[in-house]
């Protein structure tokens, strides 16, 4: 009854504050769309120069997939390379090909190298006569970077906005004195935290549904598993973001100080959640990952969205996430003791 009143009030405030509502739903959609456009553009077509390349040799190579220019001297090729007209040029001296790259953009470098390997394959004497067959255990050949980043980003945005909005709401409750008024009523401390969890829980379900549906059905993010699991994971994640945000708001005196937690608490989680390969991370840092909620959420989201796994594979992650929420929940009840000892 009292909790229901609290939940209704929180939802009412959400509906009144159209701008925050819009921020929580459209900001993630906007950023995900931009990410999608950046990472899912067409494959890069390398621009290469061929310097003094013997005609018969050219006929043996597979030269599709690159923009080629013929040069009759190295110095001309070098000038164009310096002007960034071409990404590299190929020489053929002493019966062996060699390549010079412009080299300042790693992604261009690897596109060129990939092309060169394919182009020169027919020359290799002992190349396999049959093409190597590649099978994908998960994913597929046309799975892009966005499909791999996507689940982590989805989790990150939900964590980010729920953390911030819940933290600021609770902070306001404290600075405007309404928290004191709540605590002068028969409301129990755990009821306050529960009311917040439910009110924000309902709202994040809505938020997560819209953002996930948009990413999957409109942006075409890879989705092998069940949509319901995605919602379940985001719900658990947002509960941890919510309880953590409320807890940390006790250590902030104004909205600006709440925002100061973002670079310290929220952003670093992205680096440990598998956006970048965790195995290549320095070992003196990698232990941080398992201490952050986003780590588990990202792993579970990837299991569902990329690998198509279900309950039996994601429940350990969900268990860890609920562990965080329970811990923060209890810390919140204790923190409220500062305002009323019973």
């Amino acid at each position: 009854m009292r909790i229901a009143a609290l939940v209704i009030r929180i939802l009412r405030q959400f509906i009144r504050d159209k701008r925050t509502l819009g921020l929580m739903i459209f900001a993630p959609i906007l950023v995900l769309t931009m990410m999608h456009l950046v990472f899912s553009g067409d494959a890069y077509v390398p621009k290469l120069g061929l310097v003094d390349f013997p005609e018969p040799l050219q006929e043996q190579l597979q030269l599709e997939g690159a923009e080629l220019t013929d040069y009759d001297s190295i110095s001309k090729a070098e000038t164009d390379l310096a002007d960034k007209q071409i990404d590299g040029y190929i020489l053929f001296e002493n019966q062996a090909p060699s390549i010079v790259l412009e080299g300042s953009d790693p992604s261009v470098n690897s596109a060129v190298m990939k092309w060169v390997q394919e182009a020169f394959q027919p020359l290799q004497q002992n190349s396999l006569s049959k093409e190597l067959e590649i099978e994908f255990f998960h994913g597929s050949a046309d799975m892009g970077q966005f499909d791999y980043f996507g689940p982590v980003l989805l989790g990150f945005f939900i964590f980010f906005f729920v953390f911030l909005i819940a933290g600021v709401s609770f902070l306001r409750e404290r600075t405007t004195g309404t928290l004191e008024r709540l605590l002068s009523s028969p409301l129990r401390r755990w009821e306050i935290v529960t009311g917040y969890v439910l009110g924000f829980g309902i709202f994040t379900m809505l938020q997560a549904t819209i953002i996930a549906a948009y990413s999957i059905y409109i942006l075409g993010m890879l989705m092998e598993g069940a949509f319901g699991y995605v919602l379940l994971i985001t719900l658990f994640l947002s509960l941890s973001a919510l309880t953590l945000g409320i807890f940390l708001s006790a250590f902030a005196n104004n909205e600006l100080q709440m925002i100061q937690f973002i670079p310290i608490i929220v952003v670093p989680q992205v680096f440990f959640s598998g956006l970048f390969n965790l195995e290549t991370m320095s070992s003196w840092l990698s232990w941080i990952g398992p201490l952050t909620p986003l780590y588990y959420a990202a792993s579970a989201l990837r299991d569902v969205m990329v690998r198509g796994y279900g309950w039996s594979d994601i429940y350990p992650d969900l268990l860890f996430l609920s562990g965080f929420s329970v811990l923060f929940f209890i810390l919140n009840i204790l923190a409220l003791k500062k305002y009323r000892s019973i």
Partner: protein
Amino acid sequence: MAKRKIIISTRNVSKAFGKQQVLKSITLEIYKGEIFGFLGPSGAGKTTLVKQLVGLDLPTDGENHVFGKKMPSLPTMERIGYMAQSDALYEELSAKENMVFFASLYGLKGQHRETRIRKVMEIVNLTDHLNKLVSNYSGGMKRRLSLAIALLHEPKLLILDEPTVGIDPVLRKSIWNAFEELKKTDATLIVTTHVMDEAEKCDRLGMIRDGRLIAVGTPEELKHNTSSANIEEAFLIYGGAEA
């Protein structure tokens, strides 16, 4: 004076924030059905004291008993209506939505809740602005709405921290009339103020200065004992005697 029922008994209460001693050994009794005023300049410790009576803060020394129970006690807190010094309202909600929310916390529902909301809004003269957003309220209107919320659950003890700050004299008079009405229903009121002429309207006064209770009595007694013409003079004399 007939033997009167004690509602609040404050026993040797002291409070320190770090090294700063904010309340110094206050002992006091407040009786049923009276309007008791705490009078003192800003920073004297009035808010600190009434917060303890509401159960929101603890003394470093001594005890507060309200309705015979040592504070803080949740069942006792339910019987108190508290209006803090800050308005403590949800600005993005309407007055009605604020009322419905706080009323629900005290278990009021349905028709009874509606009746109570109408009643208290009449008392503070805000009936015409029930559906306005609080963010569109003026300072005085917010103060009155805050008071109305404290009255919602018909508490038998009202603790009001500077209830009439920012309210014009005409409305202030009507609010004091409302206090008198509440008193007739056997409610006890505790009001803090730093306005001397307002203090005259209280049944009894406790003068607080630098965390010390320097005098307690009816306005008449206090004036008589110091042979002063008004409360302000009496306060100065009590304060001077202490210093």
